[in-house]
């Protein structure tokens, strides 16, 4: 499992967690709730959005498709955005690791 940079208007803000599955995305939602991340954004279908208090990174999950996206806050300096995404990625994977069916984290891509 790794982070892949996705489309964004600003350099290095949006990352996909890949490969992800519906089961993994559902566990990410559970983990974020357990960790106290704040639900955010207006409702839209099955989209679940959470914001971290530490640096404003947002995690978006679509449990039905397994999509998990990290959005680093635009206020984070460009040189630190990758690191902010990596930190959230590690936090997420650790939080869901209790289930042996999870993909182990690998090096970031």
């Amino acid at each position, binding site marked *: 499992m790794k982070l892949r*940079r*996705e*489309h*964004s*208007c*600003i350099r290095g*803000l*949006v990352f*996909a967690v890949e490969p992800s599955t519906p089961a993994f995305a559902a566990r990410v939602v559970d983990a974020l709730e357990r960790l106290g991340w704040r639900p955010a*954004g*207006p*409702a*839209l*279908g*099955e*989209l679940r959005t959470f914001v971290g208090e530490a640096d404003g990174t947002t995690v*978006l*999950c*679509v449990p*039905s*498709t397994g*999509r998990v*996206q990290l*959005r680093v806050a*635009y*206020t984070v300096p460009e040189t630190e955005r990758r690191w902010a995404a990596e930190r959230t990625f590690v936090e997420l994977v650790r939080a869901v690791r209790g289930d042996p069916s999870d993909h182990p984290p690998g090096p970031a891509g």
Partner: protein
Amino acid sequence: MSNDKHPNLLVPHDLTFHTTTPYVYHCHHYNLFHDQTIDDILGEEKGLELRVDSAHAAFRQLLHDACKEKGCRTPAERIELAQSLFAAMGQGRIVLDVSAEGGSARGTHVHYGFTWSEKYGSRVNRVDPADAVGAGFCAAATELAFDLPPGSMRATETACVAKRDPECVFEIRRDPHELPRTVGRSDYEALLSASEGGLHEERIASITSQLQQFLLGVSGDERGLVQAFGVFVTQHLSNYYNETAYAAVRAAERTMPSAVPMAEALLREAGHVCVFNTFGGILLSPEWEAVAGPLKNDPTEIVVGATAIARGLGFGRWSISELVPGERLVMDATSSYEAPHYRARFGPADKPRSYFLEGAALAMMVLAHRVDWDARPELTQAFYDNLFRGGGLGFQVHSTKCLARGDDRSRVVVERAS
């Protein structure tokens, strides 16, 4: 008729209004390109003047509506409301320090300056401020706060983060001048007839409804910016886009007829920029996946999705009248935020004036047929240049009907280029 769940929506035209003031959603790529287009047509000095005055008039209309609706009476209440509204729209946070004689205003995250700096700042040295919209807002807010007549104040941006200044600064002073007339909800209602759906209507209407509800809940963050779909989004005033575009083209027609084809081509290209960045960003987003399911690399799916996005953003009742993948798209707009403005302001047009619709429909076909969506491409400037500036778009567009001309709809036909 409005919708209980979406009080700003004029059903069934898919147009949105703050009371009487029409608004749409556009991203920073479109906003920056649009402003540059106005300056390219008119020159920087006249372009800036038109942009500031158009924003001034548009925000006067909005703030007048808002103060009336909220019952704000004192200057302090009105200024607070204006600042909050500007930030909620994703236009940035500007703090006004003004009296009835003028004053100043400051902001660190004003939409145009900040996003210009993000997009171009590392490569281009800018010498002129970028926030004509912010300047127009400052003049309008000051007038409304102190019950001054329209056009009595003028605002100038004297420092801008796009020029690498630490913050944006605006000077506001008395300078009576004429403002353009604005177009309101009643103008649209008077000019639009029955709306119609088209092919794939059920799916388009379903996605549109969800996007409209979602956008109703989107608001600026603590800095007054909205980051969504991989772009910075603004809720913006249709009068600003329309007045600047049409006044610029009409000025070219009066003084520089040979430049009119270039001006019209640039206004169409603004449609390409919007569809590539905003529509593309939405199609690739988790938000889209939650509404429409995983994106399929299928031209019909892309055109259907893009039509729903146009409606969701408040562009009007765009419908697919005919779609032959690889060959032809006929897009109808029984309502549009664009062309009715022309007719309301200047009377019936002598030729089609749906520049944005033409450019957008053409770009939809380009995105549908020349982008490998399965590869989840990054929507970079280089990719845009490759698709739209590489010499062969693969398609061409023309209008056969236009609301600006008094037709019952705008209709554009996109066909494979011969």
